[in-house]
């Protein structure tokens, strides 16, 4: 195994040396063949012709030897890559458009995926996020759903509901932040006391640490 790898590496990186060695080896064989025919009584020319006939195609032998060394796959791949690069350089306009198309395609895919990943795939950053639900009110007679709760409806629900460990309500609201510089409008929610326990935090201060990472949080 190791021997095989060592041989292949040498065959690949010292290709020219290996080729030279093979040439010398084949020439040695050829000369010996010629000698043999001369000893058998042939003239120099006849012996050479005869040896050449017996020898067959040198190019073929060389290729077969390269195959036997087990590097031809690597060599062909590198040749192909070189050819592609040459072609690219020649048709740089076409290559530019192709590369741009690829870049835009990959970029768009990444953008869409990161969006989908944050919104749909990644679990919400709460403990037991899979047990947190949001309740909506329905008006079956009017045929409308996904309605928010009125404050008095919520207090009835909160008293009656037994299926939930904690129940909390929130209402979207914006706040003014004033200080030494110009005031700023902050978007947020006003939440009931049950809100943080419902999200899985025992005390509302516990909620601060994960929220700080994603956005600015303010607890009133």
């Amino acid at each position, binding site marked *: 195994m190791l021997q*095989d790898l060592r041989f292949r590496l040498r065959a690949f990186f010292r290709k020219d040396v290996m080729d030279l060695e093979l040439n010398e*080896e084949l020439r040695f064989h050829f000369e010996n*063949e010629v000698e043999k025919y001369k000893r058998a009584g042939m003239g120099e020319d006849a012996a050479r012709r005869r040896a050449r006939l017996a020898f067959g195609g040198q190019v073929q032998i060389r290729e077969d030897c390269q195959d036997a060394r087990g590097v031809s796959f690597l060599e062909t791949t590198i040749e192909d890559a070189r050819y592609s690069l040459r072609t690219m350089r020649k048709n740089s306009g076409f290559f530019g458009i192709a590369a741009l198309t690829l870049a835009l395609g990959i970029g768009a895919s990444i953008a869409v995926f990161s969006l989908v990943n944050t919104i749909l795939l990644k679990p919400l950053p709460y403990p037991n996020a899979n047990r947190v639900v949001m309740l909506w009110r329905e008006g079956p007679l009017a045929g409308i759903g996904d309605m928010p709760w009125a404050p008095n409806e919520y207090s009835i629900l909160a008293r009656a509901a037994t299926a939930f460990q904690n129940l909390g309500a929130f209402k979207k609201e914006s706040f003014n932040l004033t200080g030494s510089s110009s005031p700023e409008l902050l978007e947020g929610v006003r939440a009931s006391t049950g809100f943080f326990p419902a999200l899985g935090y025992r005390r509302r201060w516990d909620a601060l640490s994960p929220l700080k990472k994603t956005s600015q949080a303010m607890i009133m």
Partner: protein
Amino acid sequence: MTDQHIDLPQGTLDLLILRTLALGPQHGWAISERVQQVSSDVLRIQQGSLYPALHRLERRGWIKAEWGTSENNRRAKYYELTRSGKKQLEVETDSWRKLATAVAQILESV
């Protein structure tokens, strides 16, 4: 020149090379000459198959090559059987004997 030599069956070339090298280090030409002589001119290894086979055997680690000087004072590549090559020779000799016996049995039974 009579045309009495036959083509080598697949896979026997390796065996013949290993067997020839078991006698001692040899260069490619000597291997093909020896096989031809010992087989009374029946078997001939074409250069086109000999050298690829030598490279293949070397890659497998069954033989190793070293440059040396030939009888006629020229640089030649000598091949030598390695230890795993000796083991391989035993394995291949064994399986060749089995094959030859089996084929002979079938030929004689009919």
